[in-house]
């Protein structure tokens, strides 16, 4: 929809131009990723937008130490990465699977960005589940020209809340090679076949037997369970039950009751545990 209060829309083309604009950011001057959220609800407080899509940051960078995903990479670009081209990274099918978990259509994939999905910090954001399950680390620029790193699972601190300070920018997410070598499984619960996630769980099993489970959508913020080996069913269930106390309670919105989300988390986590056995 039109944002009729917006008077300026900057399209910085290079890193220096981007950095120069960061100090001017604030509640009324915001970063624009794909725009699939910012243009979907009224933003009457916004006077200016800084569009990051002209930066031409390489969307996906493959290196020995892992995969770096630019914040401006679109979901379509992520989903198009061919797992067959990187057989040493069995986790790669999780990328497209998480894109499939987006409530937005395939047309949204062409525009929506990985960084935008993470910074929006919706409980159901599938790029958060992806990064949380694969030990993704956010690379963040601050307005003073410095860079900091923070696990994505910690970056998101609540429903539509992150640790990003005014003027900070999510530049990229690094998915380390160690995590990409794991086997993964994804499960989703929703009130309709392709609806918004009420529960989105991404699990990973490493070569050393380590077990990681990212619990998203069911809680206001992501939770990551890490165990040195495969937990038993009762132990996993007990650990999941405890998340309600540590992560703000089972989420409540029109996409599912808290009780159901809790039960589906247990049910689907057990499916993942079994699949990754």
């Amino acid at each position: 929809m039109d944002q009729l209060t917006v008077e300026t829309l900057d399209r910085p083309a290079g890193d220096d131009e981007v950095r120069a604009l960061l100090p001017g950011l604030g509640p009324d001057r915001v970063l624009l990723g794909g725009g699939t959220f910012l243009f979907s609800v009224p933003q009457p407080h916004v006077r200016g937008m800084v569009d990051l899509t002209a930066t031409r940051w390489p969307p996906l960078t493959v290196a020995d130490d892992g995969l770096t995903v630019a914040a401006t990479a679109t979901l379509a670009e992520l989903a198009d990465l061919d797992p067959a081209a990187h057989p040493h990274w069995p986790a790669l099918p999780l990328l497209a699977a998480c894109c499939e978990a987006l409530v937005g259509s395939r047309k949204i994939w062409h525009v929506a960005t990985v960084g935008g999905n993470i910074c929006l910090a919706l409980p159901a954001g599938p790029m958060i589940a992806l990064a949380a399950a694969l030990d993704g680390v956010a690379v963040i620029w601050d307005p003073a020209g410095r860079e900091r790193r923070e696990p994505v699972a910690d970056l998101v601190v609540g429903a539509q809340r992150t640790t990003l300070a005014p003027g900070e920018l999510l530049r990229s997410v690094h998915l380390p090679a160690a995590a990409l070598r794991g086997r993964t499984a994804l499960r989703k619960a929703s009130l309709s076949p392709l609806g918004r996630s009420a529960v989105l769980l991404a699990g990973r099993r490493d070569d050393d037997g380590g077990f990681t489970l990212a619990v998203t959508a069911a809680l206001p913020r992501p939770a990551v369970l890490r165990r040195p080996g495969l937990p038993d069913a009762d132990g996993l269930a007990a650990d999941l039950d405890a998340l309600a106390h540590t992560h703000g309670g089972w989420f409540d919105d029109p996409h599912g009751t808290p009780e159901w989300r809790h039960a589906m988390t247990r049910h689907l986590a057990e499916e993942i545990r079994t699949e990754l056995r």
Partner: protein
Amino acid sequence: MTRVDGTPLPDAPRPGQCLRTYLRDHGHHAVKKGCDAGDCGACTVLVDGVPVHSCLYPAVRAADAEVTTAAGLPDDVGRRFADAAGFQCGFCTPGMVTTASAFADRLADPAARPRTLQGNLCRCTGYRAVADALDGRVTTGVPGSGPALGTPAAAPASARIVRGAEPYTLDGPVPDDLAHLVVVRSPHAHARIVRIDTAAASAVPGVLAVLTHENTPATLFSTARHENRLDDPDDTRVLDDVVRFHGQRVAAVVGIDLAAAEAGARAVVVEYAPRDPVLDPETAREAPAIHGDKGPESRILDPARNVVAALHDGVGDVAAGVAAARAAGGAVVTGTWHTGRVAPTSLETHASRAWVDGAGRLVVRTSTQVPFLVRDELARLLDRPRDSVRVFSARVGGGFGSKQELLTEDLTALAALATGRPVQWELTRTESLTATPTRHPMRVSVTAAAGPDGALTALAIDVLSDAGAYGNHSPGVMFHGCHESMALYRCPNKRVDAEAVYTTTPPSGAFRGYGLGQVQFAIESALDDLARELGIDPFDLRRQTVVRPGEEFVASHDPTEHPDDLRFGSDGLPQCLDLAQAAVTRDGDPVPDGPSWRVGQGMAVAMIATIPPRGHRSRASVTVEPDGSFRVRVGTAEFGNGTATVHAQIAATTLAAPLDRVAVTGADTDAVALDTGAFGSTGTVVAGTAVARAAEALARELREKAAARLGAAPEECRLGPSGVVAPDGSTVGLVELAGARGEGSHDGSPRSVAFNVHAVRVAVDTATGEVRILRSVHAADAGVVVNPQQCRGQVEGGVAQGIGTALYEEVRLDSSGRVTTRVLRDYHLPQYADVPRTEVFFADTVDALGPYGAKSMSESPYNPVAPALANAIRDAVGVRPYRLPMTRDRVWALLH
């Protein structure tokens, strides 16, 4: 420079402008606004070949791009949608066609379609016809000779709709000085307005006027529109000094553009004195009066108790009937059912544009099902002579009842009169979801008793209907809801206790089925329980108990004291029961793997009067045009109901003309003398009868005129494609008869009944609550089917909407009365993925009352779907669902 369909756009976009408005501002109206939030796909375009939702796409980004709309695509995909009747209202269609073009490879695989079309919502079709279009099936067409009636003729607008060239309410030329209106809405569910300060708003550059309760008429009216305006309570003001729901209109700001109007709206200062909200209909009758200031002239039954309308009546003795069933070794069942608040959600939101023409007449172009009734009430509100107001509609982008309301036209008209400029108001999707009328939520308790043979001995319902903040359609919905649902069954002892009560929640209004679906959800569920208790198949229980020709229709009144005009024009119900029962057990999807799935089967029956009671009028004319073609003029609107096709088929058949020689003009108060409107499924039976009679009158006149010239007797002459033919073969061409005219009318009485039976087989995952529909069949008694493809589409669309109501859709409120489902991501309309194929069967009957033996068939297919699904879920899992929607979390909760 952006190029659109090969043509460069001359001006740069604004910084915060999305691509959709940039395109529409430059006249590219093939791009529609359905949700403005990336959920519906009506605005889909290709940017350098890549499909995107143009409402989300910053226009600046398309600066050097080649943009393609439905108007710029090759014809092949669009033609497939036209050939397969792949649309009804057609508002979503240009976006659907554009998406189908871009994803042609992916969509060739049926398994990929649900995900690929996730971002394209169609509220009308139920998607089967869309699938046919993708498959390249041709399901429309008229044989070269023979009557057009009974053929699957394509909608006359098809070729334009698929290219986005058919104008809807806000399409077409835009006046240079068009002003825009934005409404300030209440942040309280219940409050008195202490003060409105409009000074700052008026000072915003570009603001032309600010309307409040202080400078608009205080005349009480109802947004509901009926033939008899006294049917609905006068309890509403254009702008009130009391707000009774969160989101109620408080002020309207008119600006030279939307930006000015929005800025002005933000600057309006309103001071409220909050009052206690009344959110629970169960306690509303003991709560403070919401309309305590209204007198008898408002026609509210009991304002002090918040009761809009009530019905307490019965025949026989229910207690005696219950006792008799018990004594005979039969069964007695009771239960209480709840239905949800459902949003009609036509893809085109409510919108209107009003102006004063050169002759001083007020003209309103609006998205309405009832242009004549809107005109009449506008004249009353504005205290103007009726003929000083003209109301018309272009093609309307869906309605489902929601446009049998006066929701925007009062403000655009007042604003046009205040500013002297044309003024437009287009509701946002959030306004539509939060502040336009919904289906009435109802609580329905049922007692049903039967002897061992299944013959009913008692049937009683206790209904509480939530009117919301304004009475609106509540009396009509309550009376209608408790009528055919009860009258369907033969039973000596019946009782109806029903009340509709005010609450300070968004108003309820007209919605497909008009109350019947809510009550039938309860009754059909109770009868399923009864059949189960008696060990009788539910189809057989219906065969045993449904009303038969020759019997009276008794809902709750003694028919000798309250005779009505309802008749058995034809009786297809036994056929429908047989067809559905035979079909539901065959074919269908396999049961999913896994130990937690359970399978069940369910059915439900619905009856509906083919015309609303208390009068429904239509006038039509048919003329011979100078080129020898025919023009039908009729008042009713085309909003996806298909009446433009049906009326052309009726006229062509009566006049023995090829279908392409008949054009239909509708929905304009200047076109004919009167028309009650396109609601109550009357487009075929009332307006269609008027068209048939007009065509018959014209045929008589043509024969008489020609006979005089041919020297033959009129009754010897017959009409043919080339003109009127005498027995000797000599002919008077139609061009020579140009100017001939016939008129016809229908006043909506007597009325017939139509029947629907829905049956489903489902699998339920007891671990998650997921319900999968394995088999869905629907049998309908529509009398003679005028257009089998369109009628099938109406049934499928009704079934799809029924599935939405049954499994997914609910407008939710928080504890303060604010709607929390404010966008389509949170209010789930059925997508391609959610709607199974439904096999549709038609009973073979000829109605004695409808035109050419036809009956109505657009609301009623919706009604039996939810109870059929509930009964199937009950059959599968052994626990009955009592509340709609039966979402996965609720079904899971039933079992845990």
